């Protein structure tokens, strides 16, 4: 087994799916999200003595958002969509059809999220997908709770617009 700090190991086991999802929805492709997740937990491992246990989740989310932003900026062209490839992402517990459908839905959602201002999108991801509370988001993003609320409202409006646009464009959302 990997010999590493118990607390880091525990945090990785507990928060890796959250960190990875945040990185994915923040615009990174799966392979980028894997690498970025390593960066996030490496930052955590180095700062572990400064991070109270109660603040681990917020710290990791904040770091993930910033790492994702750095990575997005370093990409040459960002408006690239993930190719649909059922075999590439097929999981043992899912059929290729189910995997393809999941991937297609995620691609639709990512296209919608891609049309939102990044600050509003960050709040939407944490509130709507990760179901974090207003105060948790405020701490993670280091902004006042009122700003969280207003950004979320704007994000919802932008999502609604993007959903209508998507449906008008393709005739259906799903």
């Amino acid at each position: 087994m990997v010999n590493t700090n118990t607390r880091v190991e525990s945090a990785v086991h507990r928060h890796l799916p959250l960190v990875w999802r945040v990185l994915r929805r923040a615009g990174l492709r799966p392979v980028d999200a894997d690498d970025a997740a390593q960066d996030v937990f490496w930052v955590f491992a180095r700062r572990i003595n400064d991070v109270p246990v109660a603040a681990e989740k917020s710290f990791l989310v904040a770091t993930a958002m910033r790492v994702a932003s750095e990575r997005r900026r370093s990409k040459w062209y960002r408006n690239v969509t993930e190719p649909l490839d059922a075999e590439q992402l097929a999981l043992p517990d899912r059929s290729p059809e189910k995997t393809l459908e999941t991937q297609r839905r995620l691609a639709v959602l990512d296209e919608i999220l891609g049309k939102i201002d990044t600050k509003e999108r960050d709040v939407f991801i944490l509130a709507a997908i990760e179901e974090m509370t207003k105060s948790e988001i405020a701490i993670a993003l280091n902004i006042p709770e009122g700003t969280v609320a207003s950004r979320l409202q704007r994000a919802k409006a932008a999502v609604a617009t993007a959903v209508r646009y998507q449906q008008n464009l393709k005739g259906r959302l799903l």
Partner: protein
Amino acid sequence: MKNRDFPGGPEVDVDGRDIALDPGQQTALEQLIETARTDKPDENLTDRVLEGIVYRQSLTRNLSASTGPSRPLHGSFATAGVILLAAAAGIFLWLHPWGSTSTIKISPEQLPAKSPASNPTATSSARPVADPCNERRAADGRQPLIDDFEDGDDEVALVEGRSGLWRWVRDTDLPGSSPALLPIPRPNARPGNQLALHVKGGRLLDWGAVVEFNFVPACYDASVYQGLSFQAKGPGRIFVAPREVGIIPVANGGTCTDDCHNAHVQKIELSAQWKTYEVRFSEVAQRGYSKPAFNPSRLNSLAFQIHPEDTPYDLWLDDIRFLRR
């Protein structure tokens, strides 16, 4: 969208925009969000992350060991410095006690700075951003040809102060290893129109491929024209991207510090036969809402992008020119 902090809410946002969706759209959106909640990384990522941390820790330890133990400080100046630093730290801690009632505020740590060579988008806030458009060249509207490739070289037509070299870059290319891009005889050649650009390649999985050239110097004023026209043929589609200086990172000679590389593009559906396409500057758009219109007076480069979903690709380009008003 279940969240105890955000129940229901008004039907419009703070700017008065409509939030409400019809029931079908709302259900579909909730299904998308539910799918996103179940999205998860590969099962072995946990081990890879932990192994990565162990590896990085060992590197850090080896680095510390190789630099050897720090030498003891000698001399009165060093001793005085240490005493002064300790005193300053004591005063700081006395003025800023870390009580148990203080709100936890943790800012994420900055990643280690990379050299400009390894991080092409690195920017320095200390360095003032020089606008390359201070030394721009401008088209006069009399010679719209960018390149018809009949001269057989990889340089654009040297007219109206324009210059630049065509290149073909794929996401699999190592920096500086892109193949040379020279015109070759085109299918259905006619007298006076013998050569064209051709790129062909297999499946690409990252950002795809691009045929492009940079204006030299880095800012060109093409506002006298209303767009571009070109001949093309091939399967799939391409994205035509006249790029502004404002989307190029500072480190690459542009002025961009945020949302870089979000080029104004127009999608072109290609056909199996040669066809002439026109792209007006007023029609190209950036990704996202409420983005500024394209400014042709700050042109940095011209690109024909091929996205991964349009690979394998087989693209012919010819007779690229600005479009007169």
